[in-house]
């Protein structure tokens, strides 16, 4: 009887893991000792970092989409289906596409993040975002016609995908507007929920002087409670008027994960080193879905997929699983339209942002192009 490994979610973490397992367990799969199934509710794989560039017209949404079937190893069974419930005790999944339950021996949850703008009254109607394809396209239209007024970038939800992206957006908007001769007519304000401009104090300490140098206003301890008629009202009692609001909405995981008892707000409680679920046996979580405290970023999902793959291979071979995730995170951080910085850190070593350069900007764009090799498990 074969071991059935089921991966739930075909984003970066799930896809990299599926291909990694196909390679690592190739002989076991060929001999039918192991089956690997990847379930995703969309036939397309989406590379979200492309969306940052869409509002500025430098990338197209199509640049961030490829058919999953083209990316996933043939030894992986790909199911396009929506899972509706997880029963961790019975080790079963229920879905809209299957009559009976899907039985698993090992489950990896890689379901990512969803946006929850409705949690803030007025946000869905008033705010724009670049954390979705449709949002990025609508924001592109708004930006192209925005020639004067107050542009506010408000980080409302935390944790959120790609913690560097809000800083990147205001740095890029500042540069983009300067290049177009509009910066003097556009005031830019960046707001953040806590007392500094980024959750990581080292990145905050690096970013704040750049913001000051470039006349980007900063509001901290700023937690929007309601958005009404062009004004943001905060829990702290302050108000801020805007002409164009770009918001990072609250993020949530999938309700079905909470309903399965795996964790709160749709995030799976895991051991931050082994990535094993704390409230269920034979369940792992990685990427955004795993509550590890590290950024919800593609590099994290990528590195975690390697760890989970090694652990699963050890387990199906009856050996002790020794691979551990050390918190490794890697991010390029755009500081304008043609310059970027770079950070790398883990649980023990804090980030030290590199001096911004054009070379790092092109490194970021080059990686974005080569991402499709990462998804295939080749890079």
């Amino acid at each position, binding site marked *: 009887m074969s071991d059935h490994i089921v991966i739930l979610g075909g984003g970066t973490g799930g896809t990299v893991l599926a291909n990694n397992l196909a390679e690592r367990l190739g002989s076991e799969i060929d001999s039918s000792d192991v089956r690997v199934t990847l379930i995703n509710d969309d036939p397309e794989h989406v590379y979200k970092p492309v969306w940052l560039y869409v509002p500025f017209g430098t990338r197209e949404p199509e640049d961030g989409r490829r058919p999953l079937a083209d990316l996933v190893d043939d030894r992986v069974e790909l199911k396009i289906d929506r899972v509706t419930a997880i029963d961790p005790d019975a080790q079963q999944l229920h879905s809209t596409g299957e009559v009976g339950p899907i039985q698993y021996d090992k489950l990896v949850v890689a379901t990512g993040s969803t946006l929850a703008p409705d*949690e803030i009254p007025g946000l869905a109607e008033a705010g724009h975002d670049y954390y979705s394809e449709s949002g990025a396209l609508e924001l592109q239209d708004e930006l192209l016609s925005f020639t004067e007024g107050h542009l506010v970038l408000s980080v409302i939800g*935390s*944790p959120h995908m790609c913690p560097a992206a809000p800083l990147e957006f205001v740095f890029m908007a500042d540069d983009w507007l300067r290049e177009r001769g509009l910066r003097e007519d556009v005031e830019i304000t960046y707001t953040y*929920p*806590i*007392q500094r401009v980024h*959750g990581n*104090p080292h990145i905050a300490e690096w970013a704040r002087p750049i913001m000051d140098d470039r006349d980007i206003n900063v509001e901290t*301890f700023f*937690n929007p*409670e309601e958005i009404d008629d062009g004004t943001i009202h905060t*829990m*702290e*009692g302050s108000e801020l008027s805007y002409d164009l609001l770009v918001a990072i909405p609250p993020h949530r995981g999938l309700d079905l994960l909470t309903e399965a008892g795996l964790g709160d707000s749709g995030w799976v409680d895991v051991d*931050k080193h082994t990535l094993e679920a704390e409230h269920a046996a034979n369940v792992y979580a990685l990427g955004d879905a795993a*509550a590890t*405290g590290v950024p919800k970023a593609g590099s994290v999902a990528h590195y975690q997929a390697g760890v989970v793959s090694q652990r699963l291979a050890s387990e199906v071979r009856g050996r002790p699983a020794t691979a551990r995730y050390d918190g490794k995170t890697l991010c390029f951080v755009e500081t304008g339209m043609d310059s970027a910085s770079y950070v790398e850190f883990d649980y023990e070593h804090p980030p030290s942002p590199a001096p911004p350069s054009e070379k790092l900007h092109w490194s970021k764009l080059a990686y974005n192009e080569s991402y499709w090799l990462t998804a295939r498990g080749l890079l």
Partner: protein
Amino acid sequence: MSETDIEPAATVDARGAACPGPLMDLIGKIRDVESGDVVCLLSDAEQSLTDVPEWAEEAGNELLTVEEPDDHYAFYVVKS
């Protein structure tokens, strides 16, 4: 064991989370409760000792007390 008689309306267990996770978890829970309700935040991050009082003051919420049972802190914050 709790050292106070305060009955929180909600408790947020952010032990194990790195900053700013605990403060963000507290802010999220304060959003959900009613004015006058007490939220208890459990955190083992040292930074919470400065983050939480600073935010509570900024937002006009009262930090009633901070307990130090075992290896973590318990912050009791009442929503204004």
